[in-house]
């Protein structure tokens, strides 16, 4: 049991660092602790899901309540937070952007907590900071790598107020989750995988909030925040490449786009793993945040998923996780394999 309590006190990344620096004979013991910690997290999640109770043993002190802070950047492009305009538990403000960011962060926290038993961005209750009205007519929202999500108002042509998109807010927060788990390098295939994971969980946040089954969801990204030039949406997980007249996302590996733009096409080639998830979710049916979301979430937290992972490597890890959780010959594992084959990614 001593290993369990150690795993509860020390964050896994610290253990990994200690393991790397430890003498060879100690390394095996620490590695075992890490594996125990991982299996412990799985057991904990499964127990909680079955019994409908919140897990009692966690890293840190879980609350089930987010800690949201919304700042008004007042059109500045400064990277520092502006005026704090709404903190956790405070009543709505008179400004829609503030309330939309607050509410959409809440829906995002709920998906991660209710379904995956994750307490915020780092699973230790990290503060969720949203910086609204960033820049002037700014057509973007981004994660700064240091706990802040910036939201522009859009120019009204390409994009409108980016805080309005539940999937967009979920997408940005998920970049923080990914950074805390696999830390996928933001370039080429690992970057496109990073982007796809944000689209997948962003879409799941929206579907969970709306209580949709996979067959009822639109599988679009950004439908609520596009302006007339990009209508009806930014991306389609169902049919990559068809969301608007500039959408050039591929739907399978044969059409992978080689480019130097956008860090090697991270927002383009994400169409391939996006579509694999869509195929999995619609094959299994029901709520996509259940088995499909769980498999993707388990894969994201698998220590075998390295920062430079390719699509094929991630595919292999999703199959491994599906087999671990649902069984080697389960319909879930078969559907994962078929989903990757549908987008022509080799899976072993």
């Amino acid at each position: 049991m001593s290993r369990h309590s150690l795993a509860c006190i020390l964050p896994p990344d610290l253990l990994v660092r200690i393991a790397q620096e430890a003498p060879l004979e100690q390394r095996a013991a620490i590695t075992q602790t890490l594996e125990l910690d991982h299996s412990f997290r799985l057991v904990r999640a499964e127990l909680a899901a079955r019994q409908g109770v919140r897990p009692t043993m966690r890293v840190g002190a879980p609350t089930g309540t987010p800690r949201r802070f919304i700042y008004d950047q007042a059109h500045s492009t400064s990277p520092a937070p502006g005026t704090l305009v709404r903190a956790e538990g405070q009543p709505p403000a008179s400004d829609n952007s503030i309330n939309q960011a607050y509410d959409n962060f809440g829906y995002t926290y709920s998906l991660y907590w209710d379904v995956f038993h994750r307490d915020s961005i780092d699973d230790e209750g990290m503060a969720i900071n949203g910086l609204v009205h960033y820049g002037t007519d700014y057509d973007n929202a981004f994660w700064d790598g240091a706990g802040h999500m910036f939201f522009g108002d859009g120019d009204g042509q390409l994009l409108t107020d980016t805080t309005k998109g539940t999937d967009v807010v979920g997408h940005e927060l998920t970049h923080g989750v990914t950074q805390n788990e696999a830390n996928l390098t933001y370039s080429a295939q690992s970057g496109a995988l990073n982007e796809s994971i944000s689209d997948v969980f962003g879409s799941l946040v929206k579907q969970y909030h709306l209580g949709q089954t996979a067959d009822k969801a639109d599988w679009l990204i950004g439908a609520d925040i596009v302006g007339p030039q990009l209508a009806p949406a930014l991306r389609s997980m169902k049919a990559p490449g068809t969301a608007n007249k500039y959408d050039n996302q591929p739907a399978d590996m044969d059409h992978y786009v080689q480019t130097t733009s956008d860090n090697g096409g991270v927002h383009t080639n994400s169409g391939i793993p996006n579509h694999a998830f869509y195929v999995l979710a619609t094959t299994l049916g029901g709520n996509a945040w259940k088995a499909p979301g769980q498999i993707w979430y388990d894969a994201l937290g698998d220590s075998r998923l390295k920062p430079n992972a390719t699509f094929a490597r991630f595919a292999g890890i999703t199959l491994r996780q599906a087999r671990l959780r649902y069984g080697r010959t389960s319909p879930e594992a078969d559907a994962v394999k078929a989903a990757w084959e549908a987008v022509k990614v080799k899976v072993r």
Partner: protein
Amino acid sequence: MATQRVHIRYRRSGGFAGIELAAEAGSDELPDEQADAARSLLAAPPGSSASGAPGADRFNYELHLDDGTHQQTFHWTDADVPEQARSLMSSLNRLAHPV
């Protein structure tokens, strides 16, 4: 002394929308202040490094300047556009269209 005309090519990629924008302009089509900024960027080029900024969904900018004698290409993210180029970049962005 006549001022040199600088041909300017601008591209913005990235951002969570993943839409690429492009614009081309001559310095003679821009306000004096921004034409001067283009010339001074060419005469004394600041650093060009778009790889260092952490996080995700940031814009990537490419600015190419050519006065017929000298050429220079800069790569920046939102986080590292130098102050002297900001106003010029904003104007080019207003001229830009999706590609």
